[in-house]
């Protein structure tokens, strides 16, 4: 069979599966599906299917069609045994009735449940035990942590020294980091882990953090490479801001970092 015909066949079978699934999932009118036509198409396709993949797809389509036929049976049964009301007519009436009218209608069809909630002897016993074992309020307050006596302040230099803050303007840091990336990659795609992993764990984390900003700002694209089981950083032009929003989670645990540093 010609490749073009195979592709066309595959897309038709996929469409059959999707439309059947849609009807079953939404619970809409199953008679929207032309079962006879679908079966006719599948019969032609099954005869020409040669690969396992094609046969599995055909079987999936038959399974989905059988679900639609089952649903059609249920619909016929439901409409013949129950009171059938046209949904469009019901919705039209609801749209045109006021909430007050609807409230008085539902009250005419409402038979509330009658039940009594009581305290059982066991519940009373549990309540008494709880009360007797409850420590005095003063005792419970003592368990709260004592308030911090002294509040000290740190300067930005001290925070930088303790590596709790970054030195310099953040936008400039991101810009410089982007330039480093371009220099490293020479504008070509590079493996995420190759670029991010550093001999110092803190630097590794900082690089991962900045890469995430570059991706958010649209300076780079992240693509998954199944061969290396790693993401690839693809530098794009700075002006390119039209990026599709997506989230990628990359774990850099100390174990993973150590393994990579050791393996060089």
């Amino acid at each position: 069979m010609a490749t073009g015909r195979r592709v066309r066949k595959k897309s038709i079978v996929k469409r059959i599966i999707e439309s059947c699934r849609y009807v079953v999932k939404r619970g809409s009118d199953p008679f929207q599906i032309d079962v006879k036509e679908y079966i006719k198409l599948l019969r032609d396709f099954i005869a020409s299917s040669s690969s396992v993949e094609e046969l599995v797809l055909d079987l999936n389509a038959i399974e989905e069609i059988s679900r639609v036929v089952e649903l059609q049976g249920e619909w016929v049964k439901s409409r013949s045994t129950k009171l059938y009301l046209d949904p469009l007519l019901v919705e039209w009436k609801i749209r045109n009735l006021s909430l007050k009218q609807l409230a008085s209608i539902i009250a005419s069809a409402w038979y509330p449940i009658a039940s009594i909630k009581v305290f059982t002897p066991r519940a009373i016993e549990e309540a008494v035990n709880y009360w007797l074992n409850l420590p005095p309020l003063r005792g419970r307050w003592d368990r709260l942590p004592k308030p911090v006596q002294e509040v000290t302040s740190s300067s930005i230099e001290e925070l930088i020294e303790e590596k709790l803050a970054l030195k310099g303007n953040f936008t400039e840091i991101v810009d410089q980091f982007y330039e480093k990336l371009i220099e490293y990659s020479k504008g070509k795609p590079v493996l995420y882990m190759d670029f991010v992993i550093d001999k110092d764990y803190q630097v590794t984390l900082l690089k991962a953090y900045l890469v995430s900003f570059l991706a958010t700002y649209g300076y780079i694209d992240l693509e998954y490479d199944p061969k290396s089981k790693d993401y690839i950083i693809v530098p794009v032009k700075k002006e390119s801001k039209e990026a599709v929003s997506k989230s990628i989670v990359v774990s850099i645990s100390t174990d993973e970092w150590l393994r990579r540093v050791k393996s060089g």
Partner: protein
Amino acid sequence: MSRRKIDYSAKIRRAAQLLLVQRHRKPGVKGWELKRALGRNYLEIIKLLDEELAKFGFKIKIVFQGEVDASKAKQEDYDKAYYVVTFREPAKVSDIISAGWRIDDLGALAAVLAVINSRGGRVNRRDIEKILGEKLPKWRVDYLIDKFLRFGYLEDEDGYLKIGWRARVEIDLDKLSMLILATPIKESKKSEFEN
């Protein structure tokens, strides 16, 4: 009084306690629970208790599991069914309002249940939000749907709303839809209930 009569009246009292006093999160009891407490002939006791409750305007409602025709129900279906005491006649709007319902909450519930019932029992939540959104502000629509779900009038299944256990017990859905179709449309101000 014969021993058999004494035995029956004691069982009727026990059945009334089981049905009226809420023991679980949901009111009412299962058939097998009644069988265990009242014996194999529990359906006879239930019938007698129903006659007694009728004097006070109550009735025992039997809700079968799945689609069971009451006239063709077997003993097994009765054992699996759910028994609950309800009003024998519909409630008055004033009674429902004094129980804590707002009139626009009731109207919204009527609309939601009638739409789901007419569409085969399962409707996308967004469709319901759209219908209610024509009469109520968005924040109130979300609040009401969550309230109906919490109270058991609706059930959520992967973003699709279904009729909940409480609505199946308390509301005659076919009657509701018929009444909606039969009610003449009046000119009403949309903002009337938006407070």
